[in-house]
């Protein structure tokens, strides 16, 4: 009984224990594996990331100079970032944005990064 009264009084004066969501958003810690980014200018199309990726969501075409990532299949393990010899892959600590169209996500991949390099 006394225990309960103590809790009731404590709860009356305590501040909210949940976040007031739209106004207070939970951030992410440093080093959180969020979204995969590529600095395509530094990519040498060595295909290491494509070979090592466990979910095989990266496709690198060294002839055409394209680097494609099926963002919906990426499991954010960070292996590609670790193995890239030029360090052009990086992960930022924010989530990929929610997409409204499921079909586009699964078949094309929304943040599909593509760039033709003038490779002779």
């Amino acid at each position, binding site marked *: 009984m006394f225990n309960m009264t103590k809790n009731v009084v404590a709860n009356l004066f305590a501040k909210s224990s949940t976040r007031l969501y739209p106004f207070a958003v939970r951030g992410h810690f440093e080093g959180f594996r969020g979204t995969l980014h590529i600095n395509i200018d530094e990519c040498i199309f060595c295909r290491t990331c494509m070979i090592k990726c466990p979910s095989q969501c990266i496709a690198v075409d060294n002839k055409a100079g394209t680097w494609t990532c099926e963002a919906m299949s990426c499991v954010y393990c960070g*292996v590609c970032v670790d193995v890239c010899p030029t360090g052009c892959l990086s992960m930022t600590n924010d989530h990929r944005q929610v997409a409204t169209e499921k079909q586009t996500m699964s078949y094309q991949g929304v943040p599909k990064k593509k760039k033709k390099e003038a490779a002779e």
Partner: protein
Amino acid sequence: MARTILPFGPQHPVLPEPLHLKLTIENEIVVEALPTLGYVHRGLEKLCEVRDFNQMVQIVERVCGICSCLHALCYCEGIEEIMGIEVPRRAKYLRTIWGELHRVHSHLLWLGLFADAFGFESLFMQFWRVRERIMDIMEATCGNRVVVSVNVVGGVRRDLSPEQCQWIEQQLIISEKEIRQLQTTILNDYTVKKRCCGKGVLTKEQAYQLGAVGPMLRGSGWAQDARQTGYAAFGELGFEPIVEYDGDSYARCAVRFRETLQSFDIVRLAIARMPAGETAATVDSGSDDDTPTTITGNRGNIIQSYNRDKHHHITAAPPPNLDIPAGALAAKVKGKPDGEAVTRVEQPRGELMYYLKGDGSKHMDRVRIRTPTFANIPPLLAMLPGCELADVPVIVLSIDPCISCTER
């Protein structure tokens, strides 16, 4: 007396797991229970034919979302045993720390779900609130909340800085205080005891004969825990299992509650004793051909080499050329595992066993996973007959079923 067959699951309001039981009931009393497995089979073991042994680490992590770190740990220890890789001591301690943090968050999740199973929703909320701190530690130190991806063959991928260790210790002190506040409610409350004491009793003999593992076994009075085998840093840290003797749902709950607090102590001890130094070994024993794995799955070759080596079982791996650069974070293990290994680790739910067989190619020939829930289903079937229908959710949850890992 008329009997009714009642399907329980795969989708059931109290069970987070797709367990399907056919319950034969007679007047609200269960007389027989039959499980049906295979509802969420994903075929992860088969993937070892198309992914190389390094990529399998990320795949076995996804066998179970709750204890991903321990699956990867068990797999990596097996590969390291086959290839004769010496893991740096600091990496072993880091593996222990993350493994035990996983146990804490899994047990807190279970304690919450258990409270929810008998309708105590505010207790559920309190346990999950504490768990959130542990998830924060995971996110800050490993880069993700649940599937942490820190283990690699040969070591770990991340390090803990002294500041992070200090911060973890502070967080653990707060969480421990919060958990201790809940102790009276979960262990001494009248209504909680009314729902758990004497429900689903598994006697000591039954637990032994039916091959129960983990908190089920320890709740029935057997002091057995795979951590006693000394994997990761447990060989140096020492370990004493927690035992309860009643064998009912309450005893299993008490085992898990006390193990949570024990894991806090293990993490603290591991942080205090963690040696300085590198976190991953670099091993290069043989060539590593970088053919894209997208076009493999060369079962024919695997079978051929298997037949060739039919009579050869445990291969002594060539002495690895150990070259450990100081402070290296990313392990580079090259070579082809050849041989077999069986490894066991203690998952939150019990003993996890991996059988690995390499055939001298970069793909494993066989990765066989035996999860603790698989071992705990026969004891569950022995516990259910004779109980009331209303107690079935509590008893089923008391084994902490993880059906998705069982069916892989």
